[in-house]
C-alpha cells in the first residue's frame, strides 16, 4: 500500500518533469524564432524610417512595442508578449528613452541577459525569467538581440514571451497526475484487500481453527470452498483433525473404561471386605479362647486386613485422581495447626523409633487449603521421615513469603540415591525392595500426596543425599490462581537453584515412570527411600 503510493508518486513526478522540460524546450525555440522575426521586423521599420529625428524614431519604436495582435504569433499566449527596446550600454547617440509594451517591463530583463547581448550582439541571447500575467508571475522566455537604429546607434531588442499556454498545460498535467495517482493508490488498496480476502483469510481461518482444536474443541473444522490449493489445504486439515479426534476419543474411552474398572473393583471389594473385617474383629476379640497358633493367626488376619483396607482406600483415591473426580475445598488454614496435629498423632510412632521431632514454625503460614488433604500429605511426609531417620532427629520447618507457604520435613538418615528423588513419587516404587518394612505402607502414599499437592496448584519436591538424609517440601500458593514465585523454605542444604520452579510433566500414569518428577539430586551409592503411607 505504502509502496504503491510511493511508486505512483515517483513515476508521476518523473513524467511531470519530462513533460515540463519538453514544454520549456518547445517554448524557448518558439520564443527565439519569434524574437528573431520581431527583431527583423523592427530593424526593417527603423531602416525604412522616413525621418530619423528622435521623436519619429521613438514613435516607430512605440508602434513596434505596442501590444500587437494578428502578426502571425500563436493565437493565445502571444498576446501577453512584451517588447522592450533599450539603449545599448556602449551607445553614444542621444537617447531615445526606453521603449516598452508596458511601462516597467524593462525590469523584467535580467542584467545577465543584457551583459550577454552586449558580449555577443550577433546572436539572439535567451534566458528564462518571469513575467506578470494577469497579476501572477509565471515563467517566461526572454530573448535579447541587437538592432541598429539609424541616427540613434545600437539598441537592444528584447522579447518577453510568457509561457502562459505551457503553464496552463502543466497545470492540467499536474492535476491529472495527482488524480491518477490517487486513483492508482485506491486501486492498489482495493487489490490488496481482495488478495487478503482470497488468500490470507483462509490461512487465518486455518490458524484460528487449529487454535480452537488445540484448546480442546475437537469438533472444530475448516470450511472447504472451491477447488484451489486452499481448498485442498482445508480438506487435508479437516482429515487430520478427524483422525486426531478419533484417536483422542479412543484413548479417552479406553482410559475412562480403565478408571471405571478400577473404581468398580474397589467398590465391589468393599462389601465383602466389610463382612470379613467384622468377622475378623469378632475372632480377634475372642482370641484368648484359642490355642496359641490360632490366636496368632487371628492377629495376623486382623493386621493384614488393615493393610488390605488401606491399600484399597489408596487405590480408590488414586483412581479418583485419575478420573479427575477429586475436588478440593479451599478454606484458609494455617500450616502450623496441621503440623501440630500431625506431630501429635505421630508422637508415639516417633517415640517407638527413637526419633525426636523438632518443629520450627514461628510465623503463621495461612493459605487456602483442603485441610484434610494437606494433613494427609504432611502426615505422610512425617511418617516417612520417622521411618528413615535412623534414630536421628527430624526437623519440620514451616514458613511463609508473599506468594507461598511451605512445610519442609528434613531427616538426617539414610538419604536418597541419585535418581531416587525423581522416583519417589512413582506408584508402588520402593528404593530397596529387600529392606524390611517397619511401618506399613501401600507404596501409594507419596503418589497421592503429589496429586493432593497438584490439586492445590502446589509443589511437592524431594531432595536427598546418601548418608545425609532427605528433605521433602510442600509449597502452597497463598492465593488461588497466583503462581508461586519461590518457596519460603529451602529444600537442599545448598539450595541455590534446586526446586525453585515446579518441573512440568511429572505425570503419574500407572505403569510408566513419572517423567521428570519434582527436582531432586543426590550422589550415587546411597541407601533407599520409599513411599509409605
Amino acid at each position, binding site marked *: 500500500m505504502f509502496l504503491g503510493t510511493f511508486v505512483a508518486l515517483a513515476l508521476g513526478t518523473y513524467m511531470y518533469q519530462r513533460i515540463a522540460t519538453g514544454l520549456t524546450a518547445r517554448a524557448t525555440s518558439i520564443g527565439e524564432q519569434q524574437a528573431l522575426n520581431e527583431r527583423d521586423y523592427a530593424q526593417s521599420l527603423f531602416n525604412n524610417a522616413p525621418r530619423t529625428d528622435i521623436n519619429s524614431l521613438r514613435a516607430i519604436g512605440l508602434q513596434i512595442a505596442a501590444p500587437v495582435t494578428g502578426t502571425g504569433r500563436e493565437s493565445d499566449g502571444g498576446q501577453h508578449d512584451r517588447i522592450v527596446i533599450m539603449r545599448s550600454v556602449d551607445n553614444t547617440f542621444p537617447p531615445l528613452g526606453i521603449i516598452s509594451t508596458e511601462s516597467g517591463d524593462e525590469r523584467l530583463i535580467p542584467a545577465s541577459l543584457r551583459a550577454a547581448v552586449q558580449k555577443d550582439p550577433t546572436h539572439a541571447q535567451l534566458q528564462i525569467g518571469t513575467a506578470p500575467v494577469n497579476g501572477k508571475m509565471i515563467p517566461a522566455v526572454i530573448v535579447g538581440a541587437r538592432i541598429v537604429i539609424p541616427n540613434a546607434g545600437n539598441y537592444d531588442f528584447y522579447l518577453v514571451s510568457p509561457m502562459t499556454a505551457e503553464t496552463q498545460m502543466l497545470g492540467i498535467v499536474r492535476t491529472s497526475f495527482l488524480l491518477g495517482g490517487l486513483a492508482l493508490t485506491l486501486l492498489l488498496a482495493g487489490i490488496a484487500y481482495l488478495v487478503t480476502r482470497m488468500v490470507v483469510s483462509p490461512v487465518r481461518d486455518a490458524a484460528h481453527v487449529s487454535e480452537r482444536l488445540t484448546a480442546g474443541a475437537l469438533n472444530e473444522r475448516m470450511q472447504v470452498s472451491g477447488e484451489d490449493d486452499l481448498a485442498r489445504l482445508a480438506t487435508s486439515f479437516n482429515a487430520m483433525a478427524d483422525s486426531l479426534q478419533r484417536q483422542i476419543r479412543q484413548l479417552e474411552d479406553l482410559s475412562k473404561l480403565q478408571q471405571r474398572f478400577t473404581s468398580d473393583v474397589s467398590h465391589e471389594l468393599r462389601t*465383602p471386605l466389610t463382612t470379613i473385617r467384622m468377622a475378623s474383629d469378632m475372632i480377634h476379640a475372642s482370641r484368648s479362647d484359642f490355642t496359641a497358633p490360632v490366636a496368632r493367626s487371628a492377629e495376623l488376619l486382623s493386621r493384614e486386613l488393615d493393610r488390605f483396607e488401606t491399600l484399597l482406600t489408596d487405590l480408590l483415591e488414586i483412581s479418583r485422581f485419575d478420573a479427575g473426580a477429586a475436588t478440593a475445598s479451599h478454606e484458609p488454614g494455617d500450616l502450623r495447626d496441621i503440623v501440630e496435629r500431625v506431630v501429635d498423632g505421630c508422637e508415639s510412632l516417633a517415640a517407638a523409633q527413637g526419633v525426636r521431632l523438632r518443629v520450627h514454625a514461628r510465623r503463621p503460614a495461612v493459605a487456602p487449603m483442603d485441610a484434610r488433604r494437606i494433613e494427609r500429605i504432611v502426615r505422610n511426609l512425617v511418617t516417612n521421615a520417622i521411618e528413615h531417620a535412623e534414630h536421628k532427629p527430624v526437623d519440620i520447618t514451616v514458613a511463609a513469603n508473599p506468594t507461598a507457604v511451605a512445610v519442609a520435613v528434613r531427616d538426617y538418615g539414610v538419604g536418597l540415591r541419585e535418581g531416587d528423588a525423581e522416583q519417589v513419587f512413582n506408584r508402588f516404587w520402593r528404593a530397596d525392595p529387600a529392606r524390611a518394612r517397619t511401618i506399613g505402607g501401600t507404596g501409594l502414599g507419596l503418589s497421592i500426596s503429589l496429586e493432593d499437592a497438584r490439586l492445590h496448584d502446589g509443589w511437592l519436591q524431594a531432595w536427598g543425599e546418601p548418608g545425609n538424609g532427605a528433605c521433602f517440601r510442600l509449597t502452597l500458593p497463598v492465593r488461588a490462581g497466583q503462581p508461586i514465585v519461590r518457596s519460603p523454605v529451602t529444600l537442599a542444604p545448598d539450595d541455590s537453584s534446586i526446586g525453585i520452579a515446579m518441573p512440568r510433566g511429572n505425570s503419574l500414569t500407572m505403569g510408566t515412570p513419572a517423567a521428570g518428577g519434582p527436582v531432586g539430586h543426590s550422589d550415587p551409592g546411597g541407601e533407599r527411600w520409599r513411599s509409605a503411607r
Partner: protein
Amino acid sequence: MTTGRVLVVDDDPSLAEMLSIILEGEGLEVTVCAAGDLALRAFRESKPDVVLLDVMLPGIDGVEVCRQIRAESTVPIVMLTARTDTVDVVLGLESGADDYVTKPFKPQELVARVRARLRRGDDNAEAETLQLGDLTIDVPGHVVTREGSTILLTPLEFDLLVALARKPWQVFSRETLLEQVWGYRHAGDTRLVNVHVQRLRSKVENDPENPQIVLTVRGVGYKAGKA
C-alpha cells in the same frame, strides 16, 4: 446399655448377618430387610429406633428409601456407603440421612455411630426453653414452635439447633459441631455439617436464602442468630 431396635436394610446377606451378630452382641434388637422396595413396610412393622441403610439396593435405591422413610418419620438414619465421592455422600445426606459410614468400617465405629444416634432422649429431663429469633425451643419436649405452630425437625436437626441456641454468643466450627451433635471424637466429615445446616435452614428459616436463625461465619463455622 440402651436397648434399642435397629432396622438393617442391606442386600448382601453375609454383611447383613454379620451386622446382626455385632449389633445383637451390643444388646440391640435387629431386623433385617434385603430389598429397597420392602424397606418401608419393614420399617412400619418393626418401628426401629435407628435405621442402617445401604445406598446400593435392589428395587429402590437407598437414597429413595431414605426419602420415603423421612417422609413419615424423624427416625435417625445412618447410611452405609461404598462410595466416598462427594456427590454420593451429599445426595444421601440431602435425602434425609443423619450420618453415614463408609465401607469398609470397623465394628466399633459402626456401633459408636448407632449408639450416638440412640443416645438422645436419655439425657436431662429438666424443663428448658430456649428462644432463638421468633422460634421457641422446648428442649426436653423436643418441640420447636414458631408463633404457636410446630416445626417438625429430625432429632439431629433439633440437636444442631439446640447446640447453637444454647450459646448464641459462640461461633461453632464445623469440627466442634461434629463432636457435639454427631458425637464424633475425631475429626469427621465436615460435609455432614454443611448439609444438615442447609436442611435445618430450609425448615426453620423464613427465607432460607437469607438466613436469620443459623448464620454462616465465613472461614470459621456457624452461629445462632439474634435471640
